[in-house]
């Protein structure tokens, strides 16, 4: 029973991180119809920036903020310089381009930061909570993870629902031509969308890294899990991405706890194929039909 509770709690925590990562993919998909396969290495690079700042003796929170800002800038630069030329072209071009960026960032991080495993500190305790005489595998950092992701989601909802800027971003994503005719600077909105998505991705990277080891490949599997979570939720729906992330985190945690941690990626593949073949519009998409 205790193992089950711990597995579920661990699954929900990691599910929150997948949800954040899936949210980043969904933000980009909604605005530019591109799946950013380079999201994971982008987050990895910003995490390494944070690690450099921490190892230089500065505070964790300064590094945290710096990584988020770096993510924002990186996302904007990538959209403006690399993605803009392939927007609206054959979709295979964008796929290959983001994979190229994936390889570049990976190699660049290995050259600049080295290839070895380095430990990344956590902001809060990484010991489980004690309830009575049993220890629950919910650490202080886990609680922080959940709260941080919830806060970011809340801020995004506020941005998109209640601000003028958010309305313009939604208009640009919904219909570029009409938005342009109404005076929305669509190009800027797309850049901003990528920047925000990259920021959310960076947050996910920092949360996964906290209290464990980082190396240039530590996020590679997460891009798959984030993609599966996003597809689970319909790839178009932010709320779906969150639910998809939680569901995926839970299922993968159960597979890891009761079958074997080596098969986690295989389970993700099975879930992905099941969703794409049985319910291609995702579990929560409003759209009737989706061409996958």
């Amino acid at each position, binding site marked *: 029973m205790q193992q089950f509770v711990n597995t579920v709690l661990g699954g929900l925590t990691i599910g929150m991180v997948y949800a954040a990562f899936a949210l980043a993919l969904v933000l980009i998909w909604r605005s530019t119809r591109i799946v950013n396969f380079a999201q994971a290495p982008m987050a990895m690079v910003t995490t390494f920036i944070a690690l450099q700042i921490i190892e230089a003796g500065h505070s964790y929170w300064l590094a945290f903020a710096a990584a988020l800002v770096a993510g924002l800038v990186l996302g904007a630069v990538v959209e403006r310089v690399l993605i803009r030329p392939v927007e609206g072209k*054959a979709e295979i071009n964008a796929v*290959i381009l983001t*994979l190229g960026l994936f390889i*570049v960032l990976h190699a660049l991080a290995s050259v600049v930061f080295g290839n070895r495993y380095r430990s990344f500190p956590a902001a809060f305790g990484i010991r489980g909570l004690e309830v009575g005489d049993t220890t629950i595998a919910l650490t202080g950092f886990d609680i922080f993870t959940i709260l941080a992701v919830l806060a970011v989601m809340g801020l995004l909802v506020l941005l998109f629902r209640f601000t003028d800027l958010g309305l313009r971003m939604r208009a640009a994503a919904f219909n570029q031509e009409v938005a342009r005719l109404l005076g929305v600077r669509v190009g800027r909105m797309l850049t901003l969308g990528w920047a925000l998505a990259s920021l959310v991705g960076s947050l996910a990277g920092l949360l996964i890294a906290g209290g464990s080891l980082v190396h240039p490949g530590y996020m590679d599997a997460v891009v798959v899990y984030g*993609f599966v979570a996003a597809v689970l939720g319909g790839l178009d729906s932010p709320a779906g991405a969150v639910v998809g992330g939680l569901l995926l985190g839970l299922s993968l945690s159960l597979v890891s706890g009761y079958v074997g941690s080596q098969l986690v*990626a295989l389970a*993700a593949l099975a879930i992905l194929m099941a969703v794409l073949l049985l319910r291609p519009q995702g579990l929560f998409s409003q759209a009737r039909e989706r*061409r996958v």
Partner: protein
Amino acid sequence: MTVRRILVQPVVLAALGVVVIVLVLTAVDDFRSVQLTQMAYLGIAAGGLTVLTGLNGQISLGHGALMAVGAYTTALLLQDDEPMLPLLGVLVVATVVTLVVGAAIGVAAARLHGPYLAGATLALAVAVPGIALYFGDTLGGEQGLRVRVPDAPGWVLDAAYFVTGQDLTPSKYVAFLGWGTLVVAYLGLAHLSRGRVGRRWRAVRDDEVAAEVAGISLGRARVSAFVVSAAAAGAAGFVMALSVRLAAPSGYSLTLSLTLLTAVVLGGLGSLTGALLGAALLTFLPQVVTDAGVSAGLDDIRAAELAPLIYGLVLVAVILLAPAGLSAVSAPRGTGRAGPPRRENPHEHSAQAAAQEVGRHDRRPHLVGPGRRLRRRRPQ
């Protein structure tokens, strides 16, 4: 048939290729022949991938995983000192097993497109090494399975001595096997892509509706392309297992799949020559770049990452600057998509050109145009 057309016939090219291969493999030392074997297996897998992506428009990031299937099958069959099958039999079994796995994946993949297919095959590439770890007792876990390469049979040694005038070393034996496999695989791929099957693949790639109207089954065309491509990857896995003498999960990581993609994009999607060129670059570039990095003051591990850095940069540059690949740069007729520039239907070409023309003015307000609708066939 003119002399020129006869000369570009695949069979003639293959015969010339065999002569060149024998000459080169005779001239080089053992170290180079190991490198050339690497070029052969990368070339076989890239050839399969370029047919899938270039001719049929399906992207696969899972070809490294398919190579792993071929390699592990080979390793399982070559565990004992006295193998139960001759090497040719092992090659056939490895290819068929991978083909069957590829068919299963292809059936699922045929219903996906673009980013969905990329994501699904990416998941495949990440998931497959885990299988080898989970079934560690049979598949050797992290250490992998050792491959016992049987000695060359007596008649092969005699024939090799007769032709080349020197004794056949084990690594040269594997190199000859690898290049022999490559010639056969490329002949098959060229034959398929020039014939009716290849025309169907291209038709499905260019316009699904038109292809369906013409009576082509989209699903069958896509699955057959995937199956052929997977078979090539299986054969490549066979050669790789023989050459490396090991089948271990670390050899078939995501990196391998992405490397193969680099090779085919680099050489120009859909071109077998391009795939071979890409494989050559992937084989010989790393050493040059790593040496340059070491002499520039980097340590070995960091210098080894310079080669992937260049692959990635080239991949990005090719998509941004020359979407038809490097082999088409000399005669740029690019249509703005990462595919072979040749279009057989002139109307199709003009529609594509119109689409691109609209794309150029993408940032301006633009109402519905004929190209616009063509270009933007995105999910609701």
